[in-house]
């Protein structure tokens, strides 16, 4: 039959098999050519009375549709244009939904955004039970809402509360949940999809088949009447507001759109959805999130791809929290990992922490017990360097001490092959210092992971002037495989991330010294969109760690004449380490899990229990501006190679508010001149540490942006 560019159409037993298979791509994306072809296919099917139904399936290995092609948003400037885009999509889906013959979505692999909405418009959904199959509406993560009917169809299929959960978080639904929520009419094995699809066509033509209602009794009761729904929506709004601090417009619009549809009916709901989509797509928040997304996508490509060496065996030195975390993300990718600590007992303790984490996944049915066992077998706990000449990459995650790290480098160099790459997971010590006495400094590189490694999406790679491209390429490859977004920066005290967080932490401590209250500082910063306040963060990472980082960077800041707080090291001397020893700025319960209010005793280090109120804006500006300025200095000093790396590093590594897009994107948005002006006035009030970076002053003067 007809062979088109993206879509293949084949009729078997009076059923049209529509195979989506974008040539030359790993995944299918919804874009204009695809929609165009699809509408032509619909014409053909509708005019052919020999066809009883259609099965939509993908020709890709582990993908149905990866979502809308975000490049479509780039070419559209105004809300109206984007609203129109949404309407076009809605129209074609309406053609499917209202078609006289049944349409079946047969889903295997990732099915995201527009793909999910297409499936929702079909009359029947079959989902493969493969672990690559995941369904989601992640639009919210880009500051958008599902704009092709998702806000109307999903709640009607799986229930309002469940639909809101998926749309507001953007989280994935795996095949097990797809069956349980009622998203899928059937869950079958991947090779049965087409047969099951054809059978479904036959069944749907023979009799009316209602979608399964898998809602609980309580859900039905609450969702089935206007009063109950009102409660649901108002609760959802309340939760959303408290979580987003009003920084993200998209989640509220999602709730609005669902509610509107229930009040005014579907047709008006679609209309509302399109309008909201257009409006959201042009918000600064969405633009920033989309830019970040582009940055992350681009970072998946290894710029040194050809130079990388094949890695099979990794060794991780130090089985503490970081070492175990690095091991866990490595075995997930099938690497054999030699987890070494001073003795095998300590190494095995680290391995057991990983076992606990994998057990949680087994409980959630993400892993089978057998898969867990197979992964755990890839960890080889050891107390010695036997056979290290066979190891491709050694990542050390030992205590942050220069002498110790140098000793480790020496030991590993003596035990390993001349090709073995030695990576340091230091958070602040310059790599060239660690490599100072190395025999093969070209093999030495920094791989700065963030805690908890399993969750934090960033890997900051640090190269020295001597680091070989082979080492960078290989470290980059490992990072990408581990699912990390990788940035590569140049060496220096604190590299990029620790260097910009240090003055920010310092400012928080200075504010405390000046009499600010812990809760006010943390509240203001959380309000600004950071996931935790700086004081709580000090407790989390450890006051000792913070003091260490401050120590490493102190020369740099002192040279500039910046005022630095020495309170962190004073606190460490007094035994305050934060959450880990339940002695910090906050009180902690026995199990270290929960915070229990402010530890007022600690104020004795900051001039007594009497606190005064600061203007929120003052705290906000001082904290944010000092960080922005330091980021620009990193670019100016050549630590950073691009503003995009700076944005990714700050957002993914430090929790810089994503809706601001990162330090550089934010400066561009506000205008370099305005930021420079604010810094000038802060300098006048608080001293030279706020001196505007030359590069920023240049940009302000020439009215330029960092991102072009």
């Amino acid at each position, binding site marked *: 039959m007809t062979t088109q560019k993206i879509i293949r159409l084949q009729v078997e037993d009076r059923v049209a098999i529509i195979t989506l298979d974008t040539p030359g791509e790993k995944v299918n994306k919804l874009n204009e050519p695809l929609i165009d072809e699809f509408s032509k296919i619909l014409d053909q099917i509708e005019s052919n009375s020999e066809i009883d139904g259609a099965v939509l399936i993908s020709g890709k290995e582990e993908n149905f549709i990866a979502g809308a092609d975000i490049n479509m948003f780039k070419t559209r400037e105004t809300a109206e244009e984007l609203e129109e885009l949404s309407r076009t999509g809605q129209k074609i889906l309406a053609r499917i939904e209202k078609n006289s013959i049944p349409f079946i979505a047969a889903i295997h692999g990732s099915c995201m955004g527009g793909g999910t909405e297409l499936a929702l418009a079909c009359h029947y959904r079959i989902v493969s039970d493969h672990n690559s199959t995941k369904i989601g509406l992640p639009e919210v993560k880009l500051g958008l809402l599902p704009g092709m009917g998702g806000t109307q169809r999903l709640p009607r299929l799986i229930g309002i509360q469940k639909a809101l959960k998926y749309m507001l978080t953007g989280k994935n639904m795996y095949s097990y949940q797809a069956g349980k929520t009622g998203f899928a009419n059937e869950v079958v094995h991947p090779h049965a999809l087409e047969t099951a699809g054809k059978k479904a066509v036959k069944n749907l033509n023979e009799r009316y088949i209602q979608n399964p209602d898998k809602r609980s009794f309580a859900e039905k009761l609450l969702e089935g009447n206007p009063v109950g729904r009102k409660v649901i929506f108002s609760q959802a709004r309340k939760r959303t507001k408290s979580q987003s601090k009003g920084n993200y417009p998209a989640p509220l619009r999602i709730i609005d759109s669902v509610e509107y549809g229930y009040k005014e009916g579907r047709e008006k709901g679609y209309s509302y959805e399109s309008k909201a989509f257009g409006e959201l797509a042009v918000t600064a928040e969405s633009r920033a999130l989309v830019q970040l997304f582009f940055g992350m996508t681009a970072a998946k490509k290894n710029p040194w791809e050809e130079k990388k060496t094949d890695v099979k*065996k990794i060794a991780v030195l130090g089985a503490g929290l970081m070492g175990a975390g690095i091991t866990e993300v490595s075995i997930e990718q099938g690497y*054999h990992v030699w987890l070494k600590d001073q003795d095998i007992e300590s190494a095995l*303790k680290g*391995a*057991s922490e990983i076992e606990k984490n994998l057990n949680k996944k087994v409980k959630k049915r993400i892993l089978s017990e057998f898969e867990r*066992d197979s992964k755990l*077998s890839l960890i080889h*706990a050891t107390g010695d360097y036997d056979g290290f000449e*066979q190891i491709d990459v050694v990542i050390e995650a030992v205590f942050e001490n220069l002498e110790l790290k140098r000793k480790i480098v020496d030991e590993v160099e003596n035990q390993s092959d001349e090709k073995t790459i030695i990576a340091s997971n230091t958070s602040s010590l310059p790599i060239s210092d660690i490599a100072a006495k190395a025999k093969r400094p070209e093999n030495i590189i920094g791989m700065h992971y963030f805690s908890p490694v399993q969750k934090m999406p960033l890997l900051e790679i640090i190269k020295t002037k001597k680091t070989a491209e082979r080492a960078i390429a290989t470290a980059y490859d490992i990072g990408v495989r581990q699912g990390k977004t990788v940035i590569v920066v140049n060496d220096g005290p604190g590299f990029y991330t620790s260097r910009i967080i240090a003055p920010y932490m310092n400012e928080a401590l200075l504010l405390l010294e000046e009499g600010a209250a812990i809760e006010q500082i943390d509240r203001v910063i959380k309000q600004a969109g950071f996931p935790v306040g700086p004081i709580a963060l000090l407790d989390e990472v450890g006051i000792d760690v913070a003091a260490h980082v401050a120590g490493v960077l102190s020369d740099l800041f002192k040279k500039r004449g910046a005022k630095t707080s020495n309170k962190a090291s004073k606190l460490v001397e007094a035994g305050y380490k934060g959450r880990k020893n339940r002695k910090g700025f906050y009180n902690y319960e026995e199990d270290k899990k929960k915070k229990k209010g402010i530890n007022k005793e600690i104020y004795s280090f900051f001039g007594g229990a009497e606190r005064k109120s600061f203007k929120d804006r003052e705290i906000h500006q001082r904290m944010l501006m000092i960080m922005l300025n330091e980021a620009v200095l990193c670019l100016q000093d050549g630590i950073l190679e691009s503003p995009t790396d700076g944005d990714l590093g700050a957002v993914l590594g430090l929790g810089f508010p994503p809706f601001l897009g990162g330090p550089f994107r934010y400066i561009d948005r506000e205008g370099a001149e305005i930021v420079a002006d604010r810094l000038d006035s802060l300098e006048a009030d608080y001293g030279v540490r706020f001196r505007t970076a030359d590069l920023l002053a240049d940009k302000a003067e020439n009215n330029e942006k960092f991102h072009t």
Partner: protein
Amino acid sequence: MMKNRTQEKEVVFIDGARTPFLRAQTEFKTCTVYDLGRYVVSGLINATKLEGSHIDHVYYGNVIQDVNTHNIAREIALAGGLHGSIPATTVSMACISSNIALTMATEAITTGSIESAVVGGVDVMSDIPIRFRKPFRQKLLETQRYKKPTDWLKFFKGLRPSDLLPEIPSISEFSTGDTMGKSCDKMVAKYGVSREEQDAYALKSHHRAHEATEKGMLNEEIVPVPLKNGKSIIKVDNGIRGDSTQKKLSTLSPAFIKPHGTVTAGNASFLTDGASAGLVMEKQRALDLGYKPKAVIRHFAFVAQRPGDELLIGPAFAVPKVLDAMKLKIDDIDVFEFHEAFAGQMLTVLKALDSNDFAKKRLQRNKKIGKIPEEKLNKWGGSLSIGHPFAATGMRLVTTAANRLIREDGRFALIAACAAGGQGHAMIIERYQG
């Protein structure tokens, strides 16, 4: 393998590993054969820095088999960190199961059909399959064909209450019904091995194993196993009684033939949980890939007698075969590692080898093989003290023998073991000179 076929490829033993051997119903009681097997394979990879793609086949021994994992070799290979494309075979030959695993691999390598293999064996005596009796099993299977509820009325027809009792397997000969211990007791009586001799031998085994453990000699072969989320880490064997005395042993009553038998719980090997694994390769390939072999597999033999009152005497027949094949004498052997099923069985074998009468009558040769020097035999303890998880023992013997050759600067090691069914095995390995 009886001829010295020099044109054939040489098979080298790279290294071996085992879990600690634990008395049944102690810490490993929560484990299955699958668990211990995957721990030890992962441990072997750890020790050898083995790369999965270097392996062509897995041969793995198991005696007490679990229905859920009927080809246990495959599950262990998959879950143990080996590549999914490596075929795996479970083999069973009672107490010499991992020996047959090793020799199968050796033969496949010498003939060139594979170049390398992971071999070993596992048994968990804490977890034996307890079954329903045959009549009840039959009934249960019949119910699958029941169509209507009233069919269930037939269920109890012809079923006696005793049929509902579970059937617990015992370690006895299927053909004769005798337990191992009983057979051994008969054999020692026939060969005139006294209770005192047996107790003294068992005591020596425990003391030697204790000393070897204290000196860390066994660390090289043991893979520590973390249990209960790392709360306990098992690093040593727990059946070794370093504080045992001849006097204490003499107070135990006979365990199998009462009252005048001589085999007691103290001079017999105990029920044990454990697993072992080893890596063998074609020599040139091993060297090309950068492995450091410990030993070369030279010759081996399997023998069998009809089960009777000499059930466990196999080594006395197998040892002469391998010595003759290599034109070696007892004096040429530096390291002896024999499986100690029972002290009495060991002593019988040693007596037989040192007896002209036995040589003439049973081996059709003029002269005895000779006396095996005590100081070269099972220097680091044996199955009596370390334990005997059936299928795991053979690989332990080979690994220990190879490690001893290196420590003691020897050249040849002789490994021998008896097995249920009247079977036996012997093998000679030579230290690798790199």
